[in-house]
């Protein structure tokens, strides 16, 4: 079974197209308000607020928390049956008031759920009415992202929240600061976010990263009380996004979207929008560093030249373990694209690429990333569920599966090792600390992939060799 009516399977090779089913069996995507909540967690002092029934905030909290293992407070406007009939204006106002009193937030990020979207609540008007009733300067900025989960996946919710935040806050023009750069990293791990900031800083640039949940969702123990966890990009910094020298936006499929934060800033302030893929592997990390070099006018710092050297050295040393290995990759479209770009560099053939995402750019993007001679053996599924992905994997019989925890059932049934990346990771420690990007991320990923293959060979050997 595949998902939704708009399922597409692109058989680049000779696999027959599986019949599409109408229901979803074991989804390979999450819902839009989850993505939006994640973005709001990346703004300093922000409290996400879901406008709808309380189950949504509870489910999304528990899901994010079990991956990040950090506090994730998400408020809710707690619809009841009456609210569902008469609309949620009163509830939203009450929720805003209560959040302000309890948390004194720097920003409230509202994401709408299926419920308030279906009844057609006019949230922008509710916000206007609420603000009109409050003395100037007493309420924090309020950002609203429309995120019904019957439109797209958590990634649409994520990008919509980034766009809404920039649209609402980034209004200050004038006085371009040549050392300031906006970075819209997409849905990366906290470890990735930290690494990406280091890269920008290494060029003498100051990054405005949206979202930056590297600390809020991967922080230390507290010695004193915090109402809202430390970290995140300050509202004032986002407000000055228009004064940056350039914006960098990461994600191969995002780069083909018509409405994004980087495009909006380009339009509003005439600044450069560098739209790159996730910096995974050699070429795409090179591309990011080169872009940073252009923006800053500085050469690539020695530390990255050294890292690049070590990565290439590692690849030479371990190439024998990975060359001509066939892999299935699934997850968010931009993650899949980033991984495939890297795998193609090290001789691993992607044979099945699956995603629950529905940007409809995945096949196009992958085609450009995979060497031509390999394309005939690659099946790409977008808008797909795990039933469809597993069927394709079963046919393709890859040596390796790469993706998040939800593919474990498939890996187990098919006896193919799973290398865990992305989100959610619920069955291993360290999900938020996984580094996927940069030369360092590539090296870490290379070790994990090679070791998974070595381990399988070693365990499968009757002798039990200790040299592999």
């Amino acid at each position: 079974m595949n998902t939704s009516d708009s399922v597409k399977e692109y058989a680049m090779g000779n696999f027959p197209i599986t019949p599409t089913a109408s229901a979803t069996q074991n989804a390979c995507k999450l819902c839009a308000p989850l993505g939006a909540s994640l973005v709001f967690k990346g703004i300093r002092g922000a409290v996400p607020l879901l406008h709808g029934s309380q189950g949504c905030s509870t489910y999304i909290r528990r899901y994010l928390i079990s991956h990040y293992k950090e506090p994730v407070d998400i408020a809710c406007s707690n619809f009841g049956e009456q609210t569902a009939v008469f609309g949620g204006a009163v509830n939203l106002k009450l929720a805003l008031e209560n959040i302000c009193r309890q948390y004194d937030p720097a920003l409230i990020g509202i994401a709408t759920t299926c419920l308030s979207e279906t009844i057609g609540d006019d949230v922008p008007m509710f916000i206007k009415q609420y603000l009109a009733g409050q003395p100037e300067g007493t309420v924090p900025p309020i950002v609203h992202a429309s995120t019904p989960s019957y439109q797209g996946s958590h990634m649409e919710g994520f990008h919509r929240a980034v766009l809404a935040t920039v649209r609402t806050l980034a209004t200050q023009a004038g006085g371009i600061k040549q050392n300031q750069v906006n970075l819209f990293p997409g849905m990366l791990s906290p470890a990735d976010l930290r690494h990406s900031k280091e890269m920008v800083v290494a060029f003498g640039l100051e990054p405005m990263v949206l979202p930056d949940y590297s600390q809020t969702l991967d922080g230390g123990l507290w010695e004193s009380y915090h109402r809202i966890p430390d970290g995140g990009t300050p509202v004032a910094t986002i407000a000055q996004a228009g004064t940056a020298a350039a914006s960098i936006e990461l994600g191969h499929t995002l780069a083909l979207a018509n409405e994004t934060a980087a495009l909006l800033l380009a339009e509003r302030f005439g600044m450069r929008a560098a739209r790159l893929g996730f910096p995974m592997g050699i070429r795409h990390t090179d591309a990011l560093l080169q872009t940073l070099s252009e923006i800053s006018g500085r050469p690539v710092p020695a530390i990255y030249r050294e890292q690049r050297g070590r990565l290439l050295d590692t690849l030479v040393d371990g190439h024998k373990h990975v060359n001509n290995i066939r892999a299935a990759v699934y997850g968010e479209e931009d993650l899949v694209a980033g991984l495939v770009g890297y795998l193609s560099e090290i001789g691993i053939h992607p044979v099945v690429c699956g995603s629950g995402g529905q940007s409809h750019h995945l096949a196009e993007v992958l085609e450009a990333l995979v060497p031509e001679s390999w394309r005939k053996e690659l099946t790409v599924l977008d808008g797909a569920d795990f039933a469809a992905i597993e069927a394709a994997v079963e046919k393709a019989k890859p040596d390796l599966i790469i993706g998040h925890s939800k593919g474990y059932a498939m890996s187990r049934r098919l006896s193919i090792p799973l290398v865990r990346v992305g989100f959610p990771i619920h069955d291993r420690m360290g999900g938020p600390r996984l580094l996927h990007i940069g030369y360092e991320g590539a090296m870490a990923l290379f070790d994990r992939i090679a070791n998974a293959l070595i381990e399988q060979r070693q365990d499968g050997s009757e002798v039990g060799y200790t040299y592999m």
Partner: protein
Amino acid sequence: MAMPADMKEESLTLDGKELTRVRKQLLAKYPSKVARKRDKQIVVNRVTPDGKVPEIQSNVRTVPGLISQRGCCYAGCKGVVLGPTRDIINITHGPVGCGFYSWLTRRNQTDPDSTPDGHNFMTYCFTTDMQDEQIIFGGEKKLRQAIQEAYDIFKPKAIAVFSTCPVGLIGDDVHSVCREMKEKLGINVFGFSCEGYKGVSQSAGHHIANNGIFTHVVGTDNTVQPGAFKINMLGEYNIGGDAFEIERLFEACGLTLISTFSGNSSIDKFANSHTADLNLIMCHRSINYVAEMMEKKFGLPWIKVNFIGAQATAKSLRKIAQYFGDEKLIARTEAVIAAELPEVEKAAAEIRPRTEGKRAMLFVGGSRAHHYQELFNELGMVTLSAGYEFAHRDDYEGRRVLPSIKVDADSRNIEELEVHPDETRYQPRIPKERAAELKSQGLQFADYEGMMPEMAQGSLIIDDISQHETEKMIAMFKPDIFCAGIKEKYVIQKHGIPMKQLHSYDYGGPYAGFKGAINFYQEIDRMVGSRVWSYLKAPWQKNPELAAKYACD
């Protein structure tokens, strides 16, 4: 525990803190209207000599903007009650999130080999994944296809459909689709109108689930199973393998378990459950409706049991034996208890010196916040404060308050089924005289005394505690351990306080029965004795002068 009923709250302290001040601090940040509402949900426990306790407001809507532990109606229906049944295909009718988030996240265990067909669909997640088109034009067609596909692929014995928020709003007739598909496929297909906005918490979903199972499944198979002393276990969901431990004890005692609602359960067993002779209720909140309805329709009485805590387990096993009144059963039950208890007591005695006097707080569920106090008592620990997430007044104050509970609009919308004695199958299991005799011997039928009568004077009871109040409680009391769910876990640990999840058990367990008690003792010992908190301050923080000296050098 006894104290004068007129004792003033002002004079009460908890853990050295004046309770009036504590309450004031909890409410300080709220607007006055919210504070007034929360005030009725925060109660200082006072138990009169005849077991009466103060009234606590509960099962009322959470105030918007107060971050609550609660889930929704769908979560209670699909996630809690129906989720642990392995051989029903559960289809979530709605957009993708609800189905995904309830995809075996409660970590219920099951043993597929205990039914001949070996069906287990619990590791699957089926959803209609509604898109714009269905929201606009209706989702019945897609639901019909989804049911057909699930049937074609898995050939299940039953399919259940769960409605999420948008379904009720767009007016899909889920029940007529289910009837139609039931006729077409020749298997049991039934739907639940458990839209997330119904009721005030997952409690509404429990009730809707109870109604649905009772209407569509219970009593559909009259086969009389072999075995003596037939019982059903209600409100036990096999988190961390609890049901396996309880089943082990039943078997050892010679009891025949007909059905469990719904840990390690099969729909075949539900269908047959009315042939048992006694219903045992573990989680009163989530399942008492089925017990009530089975009693009315089929004549099975119910008693409240608790298998959390070694003493509570022994007491519950004795109650069952007492009900059946069979000498051999009583002797065998005593033999089981006598064989099991020494090991438990040995473990407790070894650990207790390290846990004695430590202070716990429990905010969880509709019964766990009560039941787990047993285990803490056995470790010599004190429960300072406790509360439920979604319980009603009867779970706090006991069923004696049922007649005085005011039904508000939110609860009135949840259907109360009208149930009458079955014409052919109603059969009171014990004569009235015998029931009266057992009652006089202390066996209470159809009763639950609630959490508060068993808690100490002056302990603080908080219903539907908010995240804000949780943080205040931690800051004020710094308890030695805090029990709640995963949503609360990490914020509590950030403050340096060990936090035990009592929903998913932190992926440990079982904690029920005798073996479970030992597991729990060891777990609490590990948590309250952990050294990690002592490293919180680095040496240069502990000794700033030294750090300054290094800096100067």
